């Protein structure tokens, strides 16, 4: 027989205002197994916990029930209390009389009755508890970072500096991501390449970091501390070890029809190309769909002019299998497609561009060598109109519901850069609100208005029409209560951003949850922003939600610190409440294996001794390191062979009996 203590918490007034805690204590004093019962104002405080420890000693308790808030809040706290007092931490049960009782009912009598019932059920369960020991698993001291933009690079550098091995897998031929495409960054107007390329070089040359560029994650299996990942290294058609990065092949390539992804389609590139001058690795890649040799068997000029003999047309995709203890997702973002926002005439007019395209037009290494010209006729634009919130804050189905966060700031940046370089060019920004929440951000935007004379007009654009070679922008001015038409040479659309399209397949491979906008969900939106609810998976950068570079770098460091915390453990303590199959009852039907969401069950042939008979049977076997204790298998099992430690069938029935008394 157990010796159970019941401790009823007031939780200040959260519980006590609705539940008569003294009455609960009295009602459960006589329950089978209960030897002491008390109430206390804040059970989770040091005072409360020490009261429990005293009671354990005084009454020789073998376990205790705490009637309080949700176990998600303090079950771990009270398990530690038990352990400190020498009890097995699994001899603790929580009766949730807050979230499931005092916070949802108004009637005091009803709530008190319900609290008593919930406590009885917890006592009934605890009477059948047995001490449990959690299993342990090893931790592989290597991390995987999926995505090689600033988020992935920063996370990798922080993990590597702490002494652990890191692999970065990046699907494009170079690391650098979107930040490498930028000209200047707000609010300091630092040159993006100048602050990024040193980090890129560090990542490439760090002893602990291995780069897998032009590669994708193909398959993930395993669990926290022990992931097995297959990485597909796509064929560059160039031997990395022989290539010197001289660039002659890219110069000489006769096929110039492909559009440059790095320059947002604003210029052409060859079939063999290096995305940009500071690409890392500085090794070209052949786009086989654009290559004359791969399409017709002719040409092959690059192979002929390559002084190092590095071109390898026969190169194939390779799969590399690696083990990791932790995985960080840093897959980034892209601007949305504007096909449902036809009123801006983006696809119809060359002079209507997105902000990222505008960034490339301003960049000295961009398609126009930094000279801002109209894409249609390469003339200097005398009037530029920036349109905010294109496809953001949109609940009509044509865009995204959320605010993309970075656009107000980058448009102020663009506006100032234009006015700085071309003081004769008039700049208008049409906005709904101006959102500048970061450090020095509002001051930055006010400089655009007050020092640089950018015309900020509160109102939205209704239509863009091409008229006599210029763009007629029809918009409202809400402060003046007029409708105006601006004759512009260029229109720049601050298009919404969305997660990179590979995010969903990565999410599926990792069973990491995502929201309806395809952003990865964090374990807790306020308190655990860099961890996925899936153990061992961490989040870094825009893949978790729109953010600018300062926030990305901060979050990247946070994710790294979580990884370091994980990798620094010698052993990982697993889940004690795992499933197990009674081999004499198991009929080998595979129902449990099919229903397990974690792939934790397999079937083995084992010799089973049943009622004196010894025979070989096909029985279920649970991998306790992977099992998360969800209980689906116990429900699916038709014979009752499968049971869950800590939540056995008998325990659940005992709770039901206690409730129905």
């Amino acid at each position, binding site marked *: 027989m157990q010796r159970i203590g019941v401790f009823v918490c007031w939780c200040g007034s959260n519980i006590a205002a609705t539940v008569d805690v003294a009455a609960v204590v009295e009602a459960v004093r006589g329950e089978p197994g209960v030897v002491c019962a008390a109430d206390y104002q804040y059970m989770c405080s040091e005072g409360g916990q020490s009261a429990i420890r005293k009671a354990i000693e005084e009454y020789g308790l073998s376990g205790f029930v705490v009637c309080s808030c949700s176990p998600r809040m303090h079950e771990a706290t009270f398990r530690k209390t038990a352990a400190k007092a020498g009890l097995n931490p699994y001899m603790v049960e929580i009766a949730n009389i807050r979230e499931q009782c005092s916070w949802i009912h108004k009637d005091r009598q009803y709530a008190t009755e319900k609290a008593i019932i919930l406590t009885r059920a917890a006592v009934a369960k605890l009477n059948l508890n047995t001490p449990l020991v959690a299993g342990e698993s090893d931790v592989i001291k290597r991390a995987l970072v999926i995505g090689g933009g600033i988020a992935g690079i920063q996370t990798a550098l922080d993990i590597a500096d702490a002494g652990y091995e890191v692999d970065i897998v990046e699907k494009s031929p170079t690391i650098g991501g979107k930040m490498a495409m930028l000209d200047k960054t707000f609010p300091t107007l630092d040159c993006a390449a100048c602050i990024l390329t040193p980090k890129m070089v560090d990542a490439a040359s760090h002893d602990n970091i291995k780069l897998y560029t032009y590669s994708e994650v193909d398959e993930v299996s395993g669990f926290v501390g022990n992931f097995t990942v297959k990485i597909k290294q796509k064929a560059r058609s160039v031997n990395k070890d022989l290539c010197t990065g001289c660039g002659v092949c890219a110069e000489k390539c006769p096929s110039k029809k492909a559009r440059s992804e790095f320059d947002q389609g604003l210029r052409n590139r060859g079939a063999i190309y290096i995305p940009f001058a500071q690409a890392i690795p500085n090794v070209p890649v052949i786009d086989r769909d654009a290559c004359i040799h791969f399409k017709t068997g002719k040409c092959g000029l690059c192979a002929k002019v390559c002084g190092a003999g590095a071109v390898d047309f026969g190169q194939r995709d390779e799969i590399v299998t690696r083990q990791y203890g932790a995985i960080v997702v840093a897959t980034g973002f892209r601007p949305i497609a504007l096909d449902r*926002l*036809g009123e801006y*005439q983006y696809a*119809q007019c060359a002079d209507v561009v997105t902000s990222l395209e505008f960034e490339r037009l301003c960049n000295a290494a961009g398609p126009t060598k930094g000279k801002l010209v109209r894409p249609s006729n390469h003339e200097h634009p005398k009037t530029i109109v920036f349109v905010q919130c294109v496809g953001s804050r949109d609940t009509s*189905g044509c865009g995204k519901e959320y605010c993309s966060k970075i656009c107000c700031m980058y448009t102020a940046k663009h506006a100032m850069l234009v006015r700085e370089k071309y003081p004769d060019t008039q700049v208008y920004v049409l906005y709904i609100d101006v959102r500048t929440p970061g450090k020095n951000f509002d001051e930055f935007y006010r400089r655009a208005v007050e020092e640089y004379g950018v015309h900020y007009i509160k109102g939205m654009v209704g239509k*863009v029409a*091409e*008229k006599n070679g210029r763009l007629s922008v029809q918009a409202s001015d809400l402060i003046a209560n007029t409708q105006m038409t601006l004759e512009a040479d260029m229109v720049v659309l601050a298009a919404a951003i969305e997660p990179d399209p590979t995010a969903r397949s990565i999410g599926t491979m990792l069973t990491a949850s995502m929201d309806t906008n395809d952003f990865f969900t964090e374990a807790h939106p306020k308190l655990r922003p860099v961890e996925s609810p899936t153990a061992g998976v961490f989040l870094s950068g825009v893949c978790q939600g729109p953010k600018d570079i300062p926030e990305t770098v901060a979050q990247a460091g946070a994710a790294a610190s979580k990884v370091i915390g994980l990798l620094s453990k010698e052993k990982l303590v697993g889940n004690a409440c795992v499933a197990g199959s009674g081999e004499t009852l198991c009929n080998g039907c595979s129902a449990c294996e099919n229903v397990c969401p974690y792939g934790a069950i397999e079937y083995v042939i084992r010799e089973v001794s049943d009622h004196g008979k010894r025979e070989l049977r096909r029985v279920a076997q649970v991998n306790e390191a992977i099992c998360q204790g969800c209980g689906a298998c116990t429900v699916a099992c038709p014979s009752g062979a499968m049971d869950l430690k800590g939540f056995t069938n008998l325990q659940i029935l005992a709770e039901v009996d206690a409730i129905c008394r």
Partner: protein
Amino acid sequence: MRKCLKDGGRIRCGQHRIDDMEFCYYPGCTLKTKAKDLDTCARSAAQALGVTMTEVPDWQCCGAVYPMARDEIATRLASVRALRCAGERRQSLLTLCSACHHVIKRVNHDMHTDADIRAKVNNYMRPDTEYAGETRVVHYLEMLRDTVGFDELRKKVKAPLTGKKIAAYYGCLLLRPSAVMQLDDPENPTIMEDLIRAMGAQPVVYPYRNECCGGYITIENNAVAAGMCKNILDSAVEKGAEAIITACPLCLYNLKKNGKHALPVYYFTELLAQALEAGAVEGGTVRAG
């Protein structure tokens, strides 16, 4: 006027197959009087294409504007009567005038999605079977694109309008609101340009092709309509248009009368019938553009 009833065995309940060439036809009042060309050319072109249009018997004026109020049913009844007639014949309802198309399609959408309106209308009409928006409403242009197909149409063109630069004027009612009308992309449509190409001419795209012509404002304030039509026509001419086509009698009137432009304005069916060298039909001969 031919009456034909569909054999229920051929068609699935409530649905009309997209490849069925027989339609219930709703002309609307203007097509029988001031806009005869829109109607007769449409019917003769349909004949040449092998499409049968059977007029809804005893149809009533749809009202020409869609009643946006959620609490009126009288203004919706005429449309529902036409829809039910087509439904009983297991056919889609074919419309030609942009305004009639807009009204009937949106009323149909209400019958399908607004339980309050559906209940009230059915309570009033007391039909044998409740009507819940099952009939498909098809505009003549959609029939050309989806039932006949522009490739097939091109093959049947005998007198292609080669070398002619023609601008399409959509106006508002065919395209908006796009969630209900679903005829084409509301900002950058292509259906009329595809038709122009199929007829052998060169389509001219200009940015004001989906801007309002002024509509009924011409009754009270034709200066406003004049200003809007001038924008539209100037824009078409700037892009090189030699003629402009439309599907709406009021748009045609506004463009011609209030636009006061040299640019000729036609119903799209006039050019279609001409290109197909379609024969005469009951009600009028085909006038050459």
